[in-house]
C-alpha cells in the first residue's frame, strides 16, 4: 500500500496489465512519445516499445475500429479516446460495432477491448472538451462502463476492465488526475462490478460517482456537523449496474439523491432515480432527487463553468432539505 496519484495508479494498472499479458497493447493519440495528453502513459513506450504502445493519427473512428479488429483477432487493446467529447465521431464504432459484434454474430466473436477516456469539467476547456457523456454509453447494451473516483479504483477498475471478455468503457475524470490517495494493488475497494459505500449514514443516501463523489463526501462532512448522517455510495461500475446494494440503502434511509456532473436531462442520474423509484417506492419518504449539470453546453469562463455543475454547497443544502425540510436560501 502506497500513496500515489490517480494518474499514477492508472499508469500502474496499464503497466501491470501489459506485463501480465503480452497481448495487451495501448493505442491512441499521443499515448506514446508524448506520454498522453494528461501524462498518464508517460514512459510506457520506452518500456514496451512502439509495437505495443501505438501512437495513432488523429482518426478517432479508425482508432476504435482498429482496436476492435485487434481484439477480434487475439490482442487485448486498450484504446484511448483523448476526450470523451470525441465519442461523437466514434460512436458508430463504439455502439454499433464494439458493443454489438458478439450479439450480431451469435456469440462467435467477442471484442475484449478497453476504451479509456476522460471527461468532466474543471479546466475551462469549454463546450467540446468538458462533457460527461456516460449516459450515451449506458444506453448501449453490450458495453460495460466503469468510472473511477478514487486512486485505488483508478487502478483496480482499469485492471479489471483489461480482463473482461467484452468491451469496457473506462471514463476517468480530468479533474482527478492529481488526486492523491492510497493504492493497494492487492485489494480493491470492492469487487469489480459492485458499488462501494464510501461513508455510512442513516438519514439519506447520496448515490454518485467520479469526481462528484468528492463533492458529495465534502457535503456529507458538513451535514454531519449539522447532525445529518448521509450515506455516500460510489457507483463505480455503472453498467451493468449491481442494483442490490443501492436498493438496500435507499430502502433503509427512505431518502435519496443522485449526484452527477452530466447534464441532468437524460443522465445517469435520471436512470438511477427511475430505477430506484420503481424498486423502492414503498420505502421512500421523499422523492429521489437528481442533482446534475445544468442543461447547457459548458461555458469557458471559469466562473460560469463552476457554476454549471453541482457543488458541495448545493448537495449539502439539498440534502438538508430532504432530511429536515428546511428550505435552502436559494429556494426562497
Amino acid at each position, binding site marked *: 500500500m502506497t500513496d500515489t496519484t490517480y494518474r499514477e495508479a492508472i499508469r500502474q494498472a496499464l503497466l501491470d496489465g501489459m506485463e501480465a499479458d503480452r497481448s495487451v*497493447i495501448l*493505442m491512441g493519440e499521443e499515448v506514446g512519445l508524448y506520454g498522453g495528453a494528461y501524462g498518464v502513459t508517460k514512459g510506457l513506450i520506452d518500456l514496451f516499445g512502439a*509495437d*505495443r504502445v*501505438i501512437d*495513432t*493519427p488523429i*482518426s478517432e*473512428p*479508425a482508432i*476504435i*475500429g*482498429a*482496436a*476492435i*479488429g*485487434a*481484439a*477480434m*483477432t*487475439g*490482442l487485448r*487493446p486498450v484504446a484511448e479516446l483523448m476526450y470523451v467529447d470525441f465519442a461523437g465521431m466514434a460512436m*458508430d*464504432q463504439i455502439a*454499433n*460495432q464494439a458493443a454489438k*459484434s*458478439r*450479439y*450480431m*454474430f*451469435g*456469440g*462467435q*466473436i*467477442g471484442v475484449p477491448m478497453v476504451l479509456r477516456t476522460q471527461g468532466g469539467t474543471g479546466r475551462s476547456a469549454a463546450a467540446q472538451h468538458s462533457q460527461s457523456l456516460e449516459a450515451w454509453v449506458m444506453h448501449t*447494451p*453490450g458495453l*460495460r462502463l466503469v468510472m473511477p473516483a478514487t486512486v485505488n479504483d483508478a487502478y483496480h477498475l482499469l485492471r479489471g476492465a483489461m480482463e*473482461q*471478455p*467484452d468491451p469496457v468503457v473506462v471514463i476517468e475524470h480530468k479533474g482527478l488526475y492529481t488526486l492523491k490517495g492510497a493504492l493497494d494493488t492487492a485489494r480493491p475497494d470492492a469487487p469489480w462490478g459492485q458499488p462501494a459505500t464510501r461513508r455510512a449514514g442513516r438519514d439519506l443516501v447520496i448515490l454518485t460517482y467520479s469526481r462528484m463523489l468528492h463533492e458529495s463526501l465534502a457535503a456529507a462532512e458538513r451535514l454531519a456537523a449539522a447532525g445529518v448522517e448521509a450515506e455516500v455510495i460510489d457507483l463505480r461500475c455503472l453498467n*451493468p449496474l449491481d442494483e442490490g446494494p443501492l436498493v438496500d440503502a435507499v430502502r433503509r434511509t427512505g431518502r435519496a439523491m443522485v449526484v452527477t456532473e452530466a447534464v441532468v436531462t437524460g443522465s445517469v442520474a435520471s436512470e438511477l432515480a427511475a430505477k430506484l423509484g*420503481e*424498486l423502492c*417506492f*414503498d*420505502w421512500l419518504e421523499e422523492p429521489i432527487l437528481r442533482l446534475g449539470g445544468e442543461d447547457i453546453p459548458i461555458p469557458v469562463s471559469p466562473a460560469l463553468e463552476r457554476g454549471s455543475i453541482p457543488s458541495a454547497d448545493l448537495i449539502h443544502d439539498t440534502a438538508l432539505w430532504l432530511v429536515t425540510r428546511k428550505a435552502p436560501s436559494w429556494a426562497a
Partner: protein
Amino acid sequence: MTAAPLANAGALARYRMMRRIRSFEERVGELFLKGGSAGSMLHLSIGEEAVVGLTDAMRDGDSFTTHHRGHGVFLGRGGDPNRMMAEIAGKEDGYCRGKGGSMHIADRALGHLGANAIVGGGIPHVVGAGLTYRNRGTGQISVAFFGDGAMSQGILYESMNMAALWRLPVIFCCINNQYGMGTRVDRSAGARDFPARAAAFGLAAARADGAQVEAVHDAARDLVAGAREGRPGFLEIDAYRFFGHARMDKSPYRTPEEEAEGRLRDPVATARARLLAEGQAAAPDLDRIDAEAGAEMDAALAHALATPPPPLSTMFQDVYAPGTPAPRPQAARLAAILAEELRA
C-alpha cells in the same frame, strides 16, 4: 465426364465458385419471395462474382470483413451455404443463431470477422487484424471488402492511412458496382480514379475488370503478396450491379438499356466462354458444375425454410460473454417490482 485437360485447375475452381455464388444469390431471392427471409434487406452480389479472384488469392488463416452485399465474398472464402441461408432466414441453425441475418453474418473459424450494415463500418477492423498479425509475425493478411459507396466514408481514408503508416498486411477491396443504392458513382465521386486516392495515401493500388475473374486474380495475387510483406494494397473491382439495390428496388433510376449493357459484363458467362474458348474445359464439365451448384443451393434453401427459428429466450444470450450475467428480461424486472409491491 470428359477427358479435356484442365490446364488451369484454378480457373475452373474459380468458375465453380462463381457459379455457386450466382446460384446461392438466386436462392436468396427465392427465399424472400417465399416469405422466408428475415426482412427485406437482402443485397445480392450477382454481377460481382469476380471477387473470387481475390478471395481465391487469400490463404487459410487470412481474415476479412464484408459489407452488406457480402454473400459472394463469404462463399468465396468457404462459407457454408446451409448455415448462411439459415442465417438469412433468421433461423437458429444459422451462422449467428438468427441474430444477425444477411447483413451481419460471420464465421470466426473461416476468418470472417463480420459483415456490416454500416457502410464502411467493417473497414477499420482489418487494420486491427493487421496489427495483430504484424505484432505476432504470423504472415496472415486481412482484407476489407466494401462497395463504391464506402469510397465516400471518411473512415476508409483513416484506415488506409493507418495501414500505410504502419505497413500492415492489409488489403482494401472496393467492389465498384457503379451504384450506391440509386446513386451512380459519377454522382457520388468528385473524381473517379479510386486507385489514385489510395495511392495518395501510400498504398499499392490497382483496378481490375470485374467481368474477368482471371484479371482480378492476377491483380489480387500481386497485392496479396505485397500485403504479406507489409505493403498494404487497394484493389478496385470494376463491376456492375445486375439487379436492384435490395429486394424491393426495381432500379427506376437507370435505364433498361444501361442495365442490359451492364449485364453483358457478366463474370460468370465470361469465365465460361473463356474456359471453353481456351479449351480448358468442355461444355458438359461446366454444365455439370452448374447443375451441382444449383442442386447444392436448392438444398440450402430447403434447409433454411425447414429449420426452426430461435426460441425467444435466446434473445438474452450473447449480449455479454458466457459466464457473465445476461441482461434481465423486462418481464422479470416488472415482476420484481410487482412482487415487492404486493409484499409491502
